[in-house]
């Protein structure tokens, strides 16, 4: 599944961007160093191949539904992990730009989830370990299947973590996980089977292609370990900087922290507490624009929550303090943000009309 802009916070999006950018940089360097300039058109055309191959659907036996080829695993097997990663990243970029699959900020997440895990985890640690130097029909099938499934499981897990860390979607960690993992088990099996089918075909028709890929072990240069350490550091710094930024602004990161820390609370029936205090934390950062508050209503609500969970007392205190600190707007003359919103919308559209009118006059 693709992550979407609408569901991620800038901190998560930025961190994943940094990670993916680091990996792209590393792989580009790797490809450049390999000196084999034949790989340049090869990579590009293979990306196009993934697009084209995805239009060939097949019927999944038993279920009767249709499946198609995935991406990361087959690319890794045919081209080696570095080229495969770059190719996957390019496919996802095109999807983000043209089909708005995911989105621009979520692109980092998507590249990482769908590129890193199959290319740098599942392929070297699973597929290669199973097939080793001498691929046979059986170990190609089992290698592809297990690697594809685990690669996708890892990707799905990352989607869940990123979504929950972002805190925009309300889906609790465990529920989301229960939703994602089984779905991706099915997708993984399909991807594994298709990958195996194609690899076996190639292995029979042109075995030298597989051998070439298998032997393209990174030759010296930078080791993946160093790179991983490097990007982890970069990610931590970016994440840290962004969360500092977030904490000095009304932003989503505390939410993320809070949420991941408070997973159990979210599942518990006393959800109200958690969400309420979130609301309060949230509002604590809000700038003091026209605030309308009816004290009695507020207290009513607070009492409700206090009844349900005594521990909110402290936050309630906090909140009272804050709300009194906000300039109280006379409720009689207060006009809603809704009205303001409608007005703004009208204004924006009007600007459009004016611009168009002006242009047609010009």
């Amino acid at each position, binding site marked *: 599944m693709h992550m979407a802009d609408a569901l991620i916070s800038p901190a998560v999006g930025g961190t994943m961007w940094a990670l993916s950018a680091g990996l792209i940089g590393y792989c580009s360097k790797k490809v450049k160093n390999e000196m084999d300039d034949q790989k340049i058109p090869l990579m*590009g055309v293979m990306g196009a191949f993934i*697009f084209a191959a995805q239009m060939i659907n097949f019927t999944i036996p038993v279920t009767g539904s249709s499946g198609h080829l995935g991406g990361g695993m087959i690319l890794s097997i045919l081209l080696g992990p570095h080229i495969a990663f770059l190719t996957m990243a390019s496919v996802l970029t095109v999807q983000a730009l043209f089909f708005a699959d995911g989105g621009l900020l979520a692109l980092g997440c998507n590249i990482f989830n769908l590129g890193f895990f199959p290319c740098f985890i599942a392929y070297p640690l699973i597929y290669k370990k199973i097939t080793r130097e001498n691929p046979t029909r059986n170990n190609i099938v089992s290698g592809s299947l297990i690697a594809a499934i685990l690669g996708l499981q890892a990707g799905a897990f990352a989607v869940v973590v990123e979504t929950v860390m972002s805190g925009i979607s*309300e889906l609790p960690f465990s529920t989301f996980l229960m939703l994602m993992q089984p779905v991706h088990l099915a997708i993984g099996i399909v991807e594994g089977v298709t990958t195996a089918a*194609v690899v076996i075909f190639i292995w029979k028709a042109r075995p030298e292609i597989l051998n070439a890929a298998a032997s393209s072990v990174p030759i010296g240069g930078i080791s993946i370990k160093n790179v991983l350490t490097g990007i982890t550091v970069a990610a931590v710094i970016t994440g840290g900087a962004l969360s500092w930024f977030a904490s000095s602004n009304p932003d989503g990161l505390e939410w993320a922290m809070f949420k991941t820390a408070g997973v159990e609370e979210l599942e518990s029936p006393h959800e109200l507490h958690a969400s309420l205090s979130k*609301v309060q934390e949230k509002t604590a950062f809000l700038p003091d624009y026209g605030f309308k508050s009816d004290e009695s209503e507020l207290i009513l609500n607070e009492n409700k929550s206090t009844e349900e969970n005594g521990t909110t007392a402290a936050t309630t205190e906090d909140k009272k303090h804050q709300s009194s600190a906000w300039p109280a707007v006379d409720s009689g003359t207060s006009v809603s943000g809704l009205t*303001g919103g409608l007005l703004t919308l009208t204004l924006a559209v009007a600007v459009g009309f004016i611009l168009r009118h002006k242009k047609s006059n010009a």
Partner: protein
Amino acid sequence: MANLHNNLFDIFYMDTLAAGDTWLHRLDPRAKVLTTLIFVATVVSCGKYEVSMLIPFILYPVFMVTLANLPILYIIKKMALLMPFAFFIGIFNPLMDKNIIARIDLTGIVVWIETIGLNNIMGLIDFNGLKGITGTIDVSGGWISFFSIMMRFCLTVGAALILICTTGFDSVCMALQRFGVPGPFIVQLMFLYRYMFVLIDEASRMLRARALRTFDTGNIKHNLFGQMIGQLLLRTLDRAQRIHLAMCCRGFDGHVRMVRKMNFGMTEILFVAGWSLVIVTFRMYNIPVKIGTLISEIP
């Protein structure tokens, strides 16, 4: 298959749009890429329960669509097609987050819209004229964040589509290169984009040939699948080899260079700076609430 072909036509159409000739089209691609990124990042940085704050942001897409002569209905249609996805994810929010954070109170004379702390969502509408309505409507945080997700979705997707429709894929690539994206990745993007069309054509020819011989237009059986894709793959590999030859014949030495005149001039600086200012202002001040407050103070 039909789906992919539609996507292909879509790309063709967006390409055509990007070939337009307005000043926005002519603007240095870097300016547009930068502004789009700032826009998306800022929209995404708005708090989870922000709804009204997001409204002013629509000014940017409106501005771009209008001045770049983009077909507004097409953009809306494209967004609508993707809507179910955002809806599917967003709809969990009302289900999970039932915590009431806003209340619409319809007691007699006045309609209250009470929000706990979240003054920015709604305020108070004076409905003096409507008598006899009673009761309250409670709005949960889930619904509010759901609307927020849908708005974010429209804004971010819209911005990405507008970028590609005013700039074109290759110019976006060139801009990315100037921003320091590594050369091999840029070349990769350009090749992918170029050969996507060729290979999809090749794949559909294969499918057509199969359909004609099997008298069956449905999906292919799984055992045939490996062969079909494998064939396509072999053809692809051969093609890659031929392309490489063609490149070598014209002096390819491992680097793909391009001459693209790009000029980040005054217009571009003003464009980026102007929009950044506007976007950040929208983020810092909740304009709708400000306007609402202002109006209420007039009498």
